[in-house]
C-alpha cells in the first residue's frame, strides 16, 4: 500500500466516523412517545423549531473551539526553535471582536426566543376543552369540570383542539385546609408541550394541542419535579381521539356503574362487601365517575390501558397483586397505616404486610374478587 492509499483510507475512515456522528446527532432518537425531538403538538413543535438553529450554531461553535484547542496543542507544541515565542499580551481589536460577535449571535437567538415566549403565553381559544389537573403523590388526577368526569393516570383529548389545562397541587374540592395540598410536581408530556410546574397554592395554566393527524395515538409523560419517594413512578398517558371518538369516550365515562351500596347501606354484591370490609372506598371513588378522591377514581378503571401511575399493564394478575401488597410494586410511605389516611401516610397501603394490630391479612381470594369487580368497570 502506498502512503497515498493509506492516507486516503484514513481519510475515508475519518469521514465515515464524522458522518456517523452527524447521523447520531440528527437522529431524533427512539420512538418512545416521550421524546422532545419527535413533537406531535403545536407547543412542542414550536419549541423544537426554535431550538433547532441555536443547537446547530452551538455545535458549530463547539467544533470550532474544540478544533482550535486541539490544533493549537499540536501545532504549537514545544519544538526545537520555538522555545522563545513572541510575547503577545493581547489584541484590543480581536478582543472587542470576540465580545461583539457572540453578542450578535445571541441577539439573533434572542429575537425568536422572545417571540415564542409570548406566543406560547397566549390565551387559548374560546372553544378550548377545560381540564383540571391535580398533582398528587405519586399520580395525576384529571378532572373534566364541564363534562363532570374524573379520571387518573390516563386521560383523553380530542385531536387538533386546544386544551386548557388548569394545574394545581391542592385539592380544595376534597375539603379545606393545607393538609390537602401536595408538593410541587411538574406536568410534562414531551411530545405535546414543555413542562409546567404544579405549585401548591397556585393554579397554573398550560395550553396543549395535539396535531390533527395524531388521532388514535398515545403520548406518554411523567412528573419532572422531584416529589418524594416514588417520583420516578409518577407517569401518565394521554390518548388522542378523533373528535367523535372523544365524545364517545366522554359519554362512556359519564355512565355511572351500579352503586356499591343501596340506600340502606347494604352491599349490593360480594365484591362490594369486601370493598366495604377493607375500606377501599375511603380513598377511592369507585361507583361515581364524577367524584375526585384521595386515590384515583376507579369507576372506569377497566377503560385504561395501565394502572398504578401507568406503571403496570392492567391485568387481573397485576391488579390482584396490587390490591394485596401495592408497596411491593410501587414504593409507598404506608408502613403501619393500612386503612384510611393519617398524617405521615402517603400512598396505597399493603393489605398483607405491616398491618395495624388486630387486622388480619387479606386473602388472595378476596383480592381476586375485588380485582374482577374492578375489571368489569369499563
Amino acid at each position: 500500500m502506498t502512503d497515498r492509499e493509506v492516507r486516503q483510507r484514513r481519510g475515508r475512515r475519518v469521514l465515515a466516523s464524522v458522518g456517523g456522528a452527524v447521523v447520531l446527532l440528527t437522529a431524533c432518537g427512539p420512538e418512545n412517545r416521550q421524546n422532545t425531538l419527535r413533537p406531535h403538538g403545536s407547543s412542542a413543535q414550536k419549541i423544537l423549531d426554535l431550538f433547532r438553529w441555536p443547537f446547530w450554531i452551538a455545535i458549530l461553535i463547539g467544533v470550532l473551539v474544540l478544533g482550535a484547542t486541539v490544533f493549537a496543542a499540536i501545532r504549537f507544541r514545544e519544538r526545537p526553535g520555538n522555545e522563545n515565542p513572541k510575547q503577545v499580551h493581547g489584541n484590543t481589536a480581536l478582543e472587542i471582536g470576540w465580545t461583539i460577535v457572540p453578542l450578535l449571535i445571541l441577539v439573533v437567538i434572542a429575537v425568536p426566543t422572545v417571540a415564542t415566549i409570548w406566543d406560547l403565553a397566549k390565551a387559548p381559544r374560546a372553544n378550548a376543552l377545560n381540564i383540571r389537573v391535580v398533582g398528587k403523590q405519586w399520580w395525576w388526577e384529571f378532572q373534566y369540570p364541564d363534562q363532570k368526569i374524573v379520571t387518573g393516570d390516563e386521560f383523553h383529548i380530542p385531536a387538533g383542539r386546544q386544551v386548557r389545562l388548569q394545574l394545581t397541587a391542592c385539592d380544595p374540592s376534597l375539603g379545606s385546609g393545607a393538609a390537602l395540598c401536595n408538593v410541587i410536581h411538574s406536568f410534562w408530556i414531551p411530545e405535546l408541550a414543555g413542562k409546567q410546574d404544579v405549585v401548591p397554592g397556585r393554579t397554573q395554566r398550560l395550553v396543549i394541542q395535539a396535531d390533527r393527524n395524531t388521532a388514535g395515538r398515545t403520548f406518554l409523560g411523567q412528573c419532572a419535579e422531584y416529589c418524594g419517594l416514588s417520583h420516578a413512578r409518577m407517569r401518565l398517558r394521554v390518548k388522542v381521539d378523533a373528535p367523535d371518538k372523544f365524545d364517545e369516550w366522554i359519554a362512556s365515562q359519564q355512565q355511572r356503574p351500579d352503586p356499591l351500596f343501596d340506600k340502606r347501606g347494604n352491599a349490593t354484591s360480594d365484591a362490594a362487601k369486601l370493598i366495604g370490609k377493607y375500606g377501599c372506598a375511603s380513598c377511592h371513588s369507585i361507583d361515581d365517575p364524577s367524584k375526585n378522591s384521595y386515590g384515583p377514581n376507579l369507576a372506569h378503571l377497566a377503560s385504561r390501558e395501565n394502572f398504578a401511575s401507568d406503571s403496570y399493564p392492567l391485568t387481573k394478575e397485576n391488579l390482584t397483586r396490587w390490591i394485596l401488597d401495592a408497596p411491593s410494586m410501587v414504593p409507598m410511605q404506608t408502613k403501619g397505616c393500612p386503612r384510611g389516611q393519617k398524617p405521615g401516610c402517603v400512598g396505597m397501603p399493603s393489605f398483607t404486610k405491616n398491618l395495624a394490630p388486630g387486622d388480619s391479612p387479606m386473602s388472595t381470594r378476596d383480592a381476586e374478587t375485588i380485582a374482577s369487580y374492578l375489571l368489569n368497570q369499563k
Partner: protein
Amino acid sequence: MTTVAVPGKVRPAGLLRRPTATRGFWSWFTTVDHKKIAIMYGVTALLFFVIAGIEALFIRLQLLSPNGTILTAARYNEFFTMHGTTMVFLVGMPMAVAFGNYLIPLMIGARDVAFPRLNAFGYWVVLFGGLFLYSSFVLGGAPNGGWFGYTPLTSTPMSGGFLPGHGPDFWAVGLILMGIGSTTSAINFIVTILNLRAPGMSLMRMPVFVWMMLVVAFLTLFAIPPVTAALIMVFFDRNYLTNFFVGGKGGDPLLYQHLFWIFGHPEVYILILPGMGIVSEILPVFSRKPLFGYSVVIFSGIAIGFLGWGVWAHHMFATGLGPVAITAFGLSTMLIAVPTGVKIFNWLGTVWGGSLRLKTPMLFALGFIAMFTIGGLSGVTHSIVPADTQQTDTYYIVAHFHYVLFGGLIFAVIGGIYYWFPKMYGRYMNDKLGKFNFWTLLIGFNLTFFPMHFLGLWGMPRRTYYYPKGYGWETMNLLATIGGFIIAFSTLLFIVNILTSRYRGELAPDDPWDGRTLEWTIPSPPPEYNFAEIPIVHERDDFWHRKYTEDDQGRLVRIPSGGAIDTPAATTTGGGGHEDGNDEGHGIHMPSPSYFPFVLALGLPLLGYAAVFKDPWILAPLGVIVLLFGMYAWALEPGSE
C-alpha cells in the same frame, strides 16, 4: 500583623497559654498556618470527593439497565441528594478554599492570611458540618429532598409525612453550619487580598487566580445569607409549623426557590471561577507566553460575578413566572455567555503561537477549555426559555452542569494539584501516570456525560430511581455507567499518584515549571513564614520579568545576568533566605497556634444536634458551654507564646 516582632521576652497579657508545636500529629488541630489549613481543606475535599463518587457509582449501577434493583427508591433518593450536596458544599467549595488558602498569600507576597485563627475556625466548621451531615445516615435518615431541597417537600412537618425522618433537618442545619465556614473564609480572603499585598503588587498586577478568588469571596459573602435565611425558614416550617412555604396557608413554596437560587446561581460561579483562575495560571506558564488580554480576563470575571446575580430565575422557567419575568431572565442568561465566551477566546489566544509543553497540568488546562466550552454552549441553549421548559429537570441538564462543574472545576482542580504539588512537597507528581490519569478521565468523563444530552432530549427526567424498559434509553445509560467506572479508575490513579509522589516523587527545584508568579521564588515546600523578605513587585508576572525580557520583535529573551531563579533573595527587599526554615535570622514573628478555633467550631454541631433532636436539656447547654468557652478563651488567649 504578621511581621510584628516581639520585643524582648515579655509575656503578653492573657489567661491561657498557646500551643507552640508546629510539627507532629496534634499540631494539625491547633495550626493557624494557611498552608497546613489548605492541605486539610484539600484532603477533606478529596475524601468527600471519593464518598460522593461512590454515591454516584451506586446511582450509575442502579441506572445501568431498566428496572434497576441495586438500590431501593428511598436509598436512591438519599444518594442523589447527598451526591449533589457533597459535591457542592464539601468538594467544590472546600477545594477552592484549599487552593485559595495555599496560594493567595504566596502569590501576593504575604506571610499568612489576615485572620489566621478565623481561617482555622472556618475549616473546622466545614469539616464538622460535613461529619454532621453524614452522621444522619446512622441517626435517623439521610437527607432525601434533593440538594436544592424544594419546599414544601422538605418543609412539611415531619409528622405531615412528605419526607419522614430527620433527613431534611440534618440537611438544613448542616448547610447552615457549612455556610458559616464559607463566610469566614470569604471575609478572610477579601481582607487578605485587599490589605496584605506586597509593596508594588497593585490590583492590576495580581495573578488572575487571586483576582478570581477575590470575586468568589465577594460572591460567597453575599450569596450565603439568602440561603441561610431560607434554610432557617425550612427548619422552622418543618419543626415549628411556621408556614413560610405552605401554599394553602398563605405562604408560598416559590419564595423558597427565589431565595435558594439567588444563592444557587452565584454559587455556580463560586464553584467555577476558581477553576478559571487556576487555568489562567497554568496556560501562560506552559505556553511560555503571557495571558492574552489580562485585563479583559479580569473584567470578564468581575462581569460574570455581577451578572451572576441577575439570572437566578432561569432555574425556574417552568414554575409559571409569567412571560415578562422569563423574558428578562432569558435575556440576562444569554448575556452572561458573553464574558464567559471572552474568557475562552482569551485562553485560546494565550496558547496560540506559544511553545506548549504538554505536561500533565497543561493537558488538564486544555481539557478544561474543551469541556467547559461544551458545558457553556449547552448552557446557552437553556436561555432559549421555551426550549428550557423541555430541557429542565432532564438528563440534558445533568449533562450540562457536569460539563461545567466536572469538566470545568474538577479538571482545573486536578490540573492545579499537578501544577502546585512540587511547590507543596518539593517533588513532582509522576507525569506518565498523570497523562494516563488525564486521558482516562477525559474518556471516562465524556462517555459518562455526553450520552446524557441525548437521554434528556429523549425524555428521561432526572432524579428517577428507575426507568422502564422500551424507551430506547438503555444504550446511553449503559455507556454512562461504563464511563462512570472509568472515571472511578482514573480517580484511583490520581490518588495513587499523590500518595506515591508525596514520598517518592522525583525531586523538584523551587521553580520547576519556569513559573511567572511569586510562589515560585521561594523554597519548596515553603517555610512557615513563606517569604524570608517581603518581595517588592515591579510588574505583572514579576518573577517572569526577572528572568526574561523581550527583543524588538517581542520574542522572549532570557536575561543573561540572570541565574536569578534559585536566588530569590536578589530581588527581595534585601538580606538572604535561610533554607533550613529557621526564622530566627529574620526576626519574623508568625502567629502562634491556637486550640480555640477547633473548640469553638466543636460547639456548633452540638447545637446542630440539639436543634435536630429538639434536646434543650443536654445537647443545647453543652453546645452553648463549649461555644462560650471557645469564644472567651479565643478572645483572652495571649497574642503569642
